[in-house]
């Protein structure tokens, strides 16, 4: 059994018919329900919700504060290699794009880490393109060795790995894995992932599950909003999370809502996801999964991010760079995507305090941390 089987069954459902049949009565009923089932969740993604967005937002806010307090956990990505063998039509790192590829040496990783740590960052997310040659598991392990000196929690957002490889990285000090399906619609998936190992839909879909099996503390999933109908994509994301959480009770399943951004190669999103749709997606996920962490990336603008804070977000990247060497080396790389929120860590903290929220820098102590951390 894999989520693939769940997906296969779900995709036969008449989404359009169902979504259009939802009435305001249904939404009223859901508003007063304590535990939502999958049908309620799908209803929350229907057009009928639009006029109730404020009321639902208040409920989402209240649930988030109850479970997470008025706190936002901060982390930063660190891009260590942009070599990539895949051709994904929406990504700057795509193999067909011509630019000077970069890969950090351990000295450079150290310099980047030192700079990030000096801003107070304690949780770090390692990012690479997909290239067994340039960013092998051994290279990631070496990087983790360096990062361990500076950070209390290390996660990875790299190409999908086998369970044994995740175990190896866990032993090395990795706590979590982030892997987005990008798009759950299998047919559409093929259109966007033209070349390379990433074309294998099923292998990618089962990646979060392999992370759970390897015993990683947290597994973070999501779909890249804009690649297909967002109502369906968010629904599949939520169902994937539930599938994993039920099966792997000891793994923290988190969610992200990345939205497609302009990047090298002038890709235009296939399905427009406006701010209202984004907010509806966030609220639906929060109400359906009140205990799950939700990450917001710097893809969104500073103003929009500030507005989203009370609606269910629990984690944010701060002062993020999406290029290799972006924290210490001069103009080394190409950005994977353009970020919209260009504020530094201090500014983000100030914005949080102003909203009545407290930034949390440290929320775990990975196994080889020195006692002073």
């Amino acid at each position, binding site marked *: 059994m894999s989520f693939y089987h769940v997906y296969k069954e779900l995709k036969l459902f008449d989404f359009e018919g169902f979504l259009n049949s939802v009435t305001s009565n249904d939404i009223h009923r859901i508003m007063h329900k304590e535990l939502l089932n999958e049908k309620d969740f799908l209803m929350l993604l229907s057009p009928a919700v639009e006029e109730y967005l404020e009321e639902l937002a208040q409920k989402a806010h209240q649930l988030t504060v109850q479970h997470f307090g008025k706190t936002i956990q901060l982390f930063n990505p660190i891009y260590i290699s942009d070599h990539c063998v895949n051709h994904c039509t929406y990504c700057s790192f795509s193999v067909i794009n011509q630019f000077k590829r970069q890969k950090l040496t351990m000295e450079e990783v150290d310099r980047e880490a030192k700079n990030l740590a000096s801003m107070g960052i304690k949780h770090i997310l390692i990012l690479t393109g997909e290239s067994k040659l340039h960013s092998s598991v051994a290279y990631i392990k070496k990087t983790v060795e360096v990062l361990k000196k500076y950070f209390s929690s290390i996660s990875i957002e790299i190409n999908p790995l086998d369970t044994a490889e995740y175990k190896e990285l866990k032993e090395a000090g990795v706590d979590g894995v982030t892997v987005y399906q990008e798009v759950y619609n299998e047919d559409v998936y093929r259109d966007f992932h033209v070349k390379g190992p990433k074309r294998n839909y099923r292998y990618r879909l089962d990646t979060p599950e392999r992370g759970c099996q390897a015993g990683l503390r947290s597994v973070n999933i999501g779909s890249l909003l804009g690649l297909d109908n967002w109502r369906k994509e968010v629904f599949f994301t939520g169902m994937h999370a539930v599938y994993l959480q039920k099966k792997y*009770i000891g793994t923290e399943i988190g969610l992200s809502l990345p939205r497609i951004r302009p990047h090298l190669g002038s890709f235009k999103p296939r399905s427009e996801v406006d701010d209202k749709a984004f907010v509806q997606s966030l609220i639906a996920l929060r109400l359906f999964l009140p205990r799950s962490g939700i990450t917001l990336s710097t893809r969104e603008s500073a103003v929009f991010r500030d507005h989203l804070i009370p609606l269910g977000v629990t984690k944010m990247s701060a002062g993020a760079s999406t290029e290799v060497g972006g924290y210490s080396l001069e103009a080394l790389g190409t950005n994977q995507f353009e970020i919209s929120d260009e504020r530094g860590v201090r500014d983000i903290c100030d914005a949080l305090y102003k909203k*009545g929220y*407290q930034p949390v820098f440290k929320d775990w102590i990975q196994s080889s941390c020195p006692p002073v*951390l």
Partner: protein
Amino acid sequence: MKDELIIGGVKLNNRLFIGTGKFHNDGVIPDVIKRSMVQVITVAMRRVDLRSSEENIMNFISKDMILLPNTSGARTAEEAVRIAKLARAAGLGDWVKIEVITDQKYLLPDNYETLKATERLVKEGFVVLPYMSPDLVVAKQLEEVGAAAVMPLGSPIGSNRGFRTKELVRIMIAESKVPIVVDAGIAKPSEACEAMELGADAVLVNTAIATSNNPIDMAEAFANSVKAGRTAYLSGVGATTLEARASSPLTGFLT
């Protein structure tokens, strides 16, 4: 007889313990402490960052408080032991609240791993207060291996569902030799009061205080309700019936 609560050899006057997570700004904590006059405060070791001068929770907790570092985030006994040792090495003292939670949905404690961690840490000289799902047999085992107090949950952490485990905690109170501290799920002062009326030795509250619109006032309300509940318990809470009752319907004629 004086009504004293002694845990780990320390006499406590205030039977409300508080937590430190979920505040919108840790800067409010000193006033919460001052107004409620609490003595015991729990801190998640995973959040403590002694290297940071600014974002360090310890800046807001005065030295005379009794620190109860907790092992939240631990999913095995081994992790809990590691975190407890880190806390002691970092100078946070010998007290530790064991939290071992595998289940990431309801955040219910793993009693079996909790027992293992308690046993090991007691041997290493810690004053151990394990957080647990109410279960008399486990409570007795925790007592046996040297727990300084036992902390059954009122309902799942952060759930605000109130004192739902009352019947099980009632039995634990009746049978335990060590203090019983009701921890988690308490949403309202009246529920804290209820636990105290029942005979709990103390109550630990975090979410209800930290996420209220006015944490300082709410902390005071909880402190008062805990005190009221304790006084009521000591005075002997009367039996309840549904119907009104005359003073001595059967033997009144004797006077």
